């Protein structure tokens, strides 16, 4: 594979962090159920804060502040790799786990195993949940029909 065929590393990380942000903490804990968390150095301790959520007037116009949302972040180093976690909510343990997984997945030695064990199943479960919610909504879609009156 030539270098041009490799996926953009930023896109790879965006997909990973988006999936991990939506994961249950329990699913992340299971990754380390056997050996526990690997040695890592905490660069930015788990911290809960807020992000101001912006909207746009009319959906596409002037930006305005809708309100804040709680966000928890954490930055760690595992070996040579910096792992980052930013996700909605106040779960500090989850933030630490995500940051460690983000660092491990930059390492060729762990990437494929974590993809198969964690990210792949997470992605499938999310797709399935979205599809189910959408099909339940679709069951409430109105099918209009016209009553034909009298003799044609």
């Amino acid at each position, binding site marked *: 594979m030539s270098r041009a065929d490799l996926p953009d590393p930023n896109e790879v990380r965006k997909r990973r962090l988006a999936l991990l942000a939506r994961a249950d903490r329990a699913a992340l804990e299971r990754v380390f159920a056997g050996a526990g968390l690997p040695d890592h150095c905490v660069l930015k301790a788990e911290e809960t804060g807020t992000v101001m959520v912006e909207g746009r007037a009319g*959906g596409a116009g002037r930006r305005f*502040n809708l309100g804040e949302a709680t966000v928890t972040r954490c930055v760690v180093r595992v070996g040579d790799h910096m792992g980052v976690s930013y996700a909605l909510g106040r779960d500090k343990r989850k933030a630490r786990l995500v940051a460690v997984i983000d660092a491990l997945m930059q390492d060729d030695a762990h990437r494929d195993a974590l993809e198969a064990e964690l990210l792949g199943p997470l992605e499938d479960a999310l797709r399935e949940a979205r599809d189910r919610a959408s099909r339940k909504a679709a069951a409430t879609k109105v099918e209009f029909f016209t009553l034909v009156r009298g003799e044609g």
Partner: protein
Amino acid sequence: MYVAVKGGEAAILATHDLVAEERRGDPAVPELSVAQLREQMALAVARVMNEGSLFDEDLAALALKQSQGDAIEAAFLMRAYRTTLPRFGSSEPVDTAAMAIRRRISATYKDLPGGQVLGPTYDYTHRLFDFALAAEGGEVKIAPEAVAPLDRTMPRVPDILGAEGLMEPETPPEGDPRPFDLTRDPVEFPADRDVRLQTLARGDEGFLLGLAYSVQRGFGGNHPFAGEIRMGEVSVGFDVPELGFSIDLGEITLTECQMVNQFQGAKDVPPQFTRGYGLVFGHCERKAMSMAIVDRALKARQFGESADYPAQQEEFVLYHADNVEAAGFVEHLKLPHYVDFQGELELLRKIRREQEERAAANREAAE
């Protein structure tokens, strides 16, 4: 003059214990969990998140538990907690066109791309009690699933009208400026649209509903159509300083309402429909609709309409929409005003004494 008076400490401690006991109610009845409130009182949770101006379903459920279901007290708890947290920054503007839709209706087009999707709504219920809910442990209802999911994206109704040039355009101003933040800076008048929308988004649902109703009844002169209401999940994008690019922090539930209102035009602009916009956290449709109607009413200045009615007067609306501020000022009257009141009492006695003395003097003069 303020005079510090000591005392009441023991009484205050005792009231904390008493309110905790009252909150728990009959101990023979099982205690509510925060998770139960979050899952089974989701619309109350949404209201608390909006008026508390903080998206966190667990915290809003805890706030409802702690406040015995008092929505304004719960919003106050959310606001107070928020002030203890650092602000990491601002999100990218949410893209409601990319919403994972669970409900989407239009009162202006019967057949529109994506269709009319009723979703979870009380609109078509008969408002008759379901006494089966009074008994616990009923079966868990599973909703039916259609064979195919909804369209992945659905056009927003004003964009359909906009494509024909029939709708007031909604585009970012030059340079797409950062919005004003009323939690950081004092509101000044005349207020721009971003100030108004932020204020309305955190405003009291009841206040906005009353104002919206007044507009419809003639105290405003707009005739709104619900162009579109959509509810569902939207991703929150955030530019992470450690990474240097934007990531997806997860998703939040939003309700958006686009009101279509009667025409405005000018010498160089042909007549067009005008817009009102509502956007709120969670499934909170009445609030989104009220917000959209009031947003349009507050455009009176922009369209050269005379602002004759309360909903069109931005100082009146923006200064009185916040229920935490309003409750604070109304309820502060409960605090001791002993000295103020003594002053008033003295004054009243003096006025009466003087009046009596004058009357007595007049009587004497007449005799």
